[in-house]
């Protein structure tokens, strides 16, 4: 039987299946030329590899290192579509599974940043009030609430949610990290919903997603803040310590400026 050079090459590279490998091994025993050829393939491979090994110990330029460490939101890109953001959220839910039980404020992944871009980039859907002041800003790689969102998180009680409000508050709870957290829904056709936690005098937004009923909602339809999307629900379940605050505890937490005892 004749064995092509390509087959010998694949043999030398360990790429043949069992049957083909057995056939080559059999042929090698009787044909020293074939064996020599395989040895050449292997020697060449080693030689090429060795000639390109120095590159691996070269210092990597700082700009590449920082590009790799950068959170996506810092790249200045806010072109993102809803499907991307949804997919990213779904992926993050998986990622968070592996990060479960870690302190809440330490989680800040690229998808959160994509969500950040979403909220910044899709301002059109948010209604007339949006133009006045941004609802979020970037603070050292974390997305924090600002403007009406920060105000709503700090001041509003769940019971206050009127249809006219820019922000509706869902539930409030104490997280395992010791921070107070609240779920919220923004007004507008897209109705993004999220979870924000009060930490260091800021509301850090840990999760942001479309609310459950918003996808096919007609313009003006408001999702009740209590209807949490699966992503929000999951985030709450991961963060929460004990039960959500009742109205009395919610008001008490607000009067303490959302600073917990810890």
């Amino acid at each position, binding site marked *: 039987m004749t064995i092509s050079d390509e087959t010998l*090459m694949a043999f030398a590279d360990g790429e043949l299946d069992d049957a083909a490998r057995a056939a080559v091994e059999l042929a090698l025993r009787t044909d020293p030329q074939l064996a020599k050829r395989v040895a050449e*393939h292997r*020697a060449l491979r080693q*030689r090429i590899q060795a000639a390109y090994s*120095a590159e691996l110990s*070269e210092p990597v330029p700082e700009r590449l290192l920082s590009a790799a460490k950068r959170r996506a939101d810092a790249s200045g890109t806010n072109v993102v579509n809803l499907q991307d953001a949804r997919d990213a959220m779904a992926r993050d839910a998986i*990622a968070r599974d*592996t990060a479960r039980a870690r302190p809440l404020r330490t989680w*800040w992944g690229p998808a959160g940043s994509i969500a950040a871009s979403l909220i910044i980039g899709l301002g059109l859907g948010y209604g007339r009030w949006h133009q006045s002041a941004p609802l979020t800003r970037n603070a050292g790689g974390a997305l924090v609430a600002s403007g009406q969102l920060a105000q709503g998180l700090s001041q509003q009680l769940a019971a206050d949610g009127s249809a006219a409000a820019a922000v509706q508050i869902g539930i409030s709870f104490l997280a395992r990290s010791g921070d107070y957290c609240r779920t919220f829904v923004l007004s507008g056709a897209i109705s993004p919903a999220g979870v924000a936690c009060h930490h260091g005098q800021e509301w850090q937004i840990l999760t942001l997603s479309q609310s459950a009923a918003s996808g096919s909602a007609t313009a003006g339809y408001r999702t009740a803040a209590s209807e949490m999307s699966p992503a929000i629900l999951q985030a709450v379940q991961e963060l929460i310590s004990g039960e959500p605050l009742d109205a009395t505890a919610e008001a008490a937490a607000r009067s303490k400026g959302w600073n917990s005892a810890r």
Partner: protein
Amino acid sequence: MNTSEASQTIHEQIVTLLPRLRRFARNLTHNPHDADDVVQIAVERALLRLDQWRRDARLDSWMFKIVRNAWIDELRSRGRRDKVFLAEEAGDHVGIESIENEATRMSVHAAMARLPEDQRVAVSLVLIEGLPYKEAAEVLEVPIGTLTSRLARGRQALQALLGDEG
């Protein structure tokens, strides 16, 4: 500020891959400055498109593919107005033990530079970056038979250029 294990892992994995991405990009672009530009673009793209990375896929293959696509885009936008230089060497290699090794290294680099691009990239992915044929074919978006024939021709040419001294 800490980052979570999950997000840290992906950023750190990419940092770990950077030397290989640069090496591949140099073989692709033939120019260390272009290579670093293309790697930077690719890293930024990858981080924005993490949701497109299948978690069961190899991160290195996925990144090599993004590097290659970034280079294709770059060539298109330049309209190939720049002549690609032949094997310009970066002046800052480290870890070179001796002049003899350096001479061997340079002869291999010079031989690689003489290969047609499709063969050079196939050799680069399989022999240098160590990808299995199947992964390399996916990076290049060609059938595996095309990959193996480019690889075989590339090897033959290298063997001829480098002689038999092994």
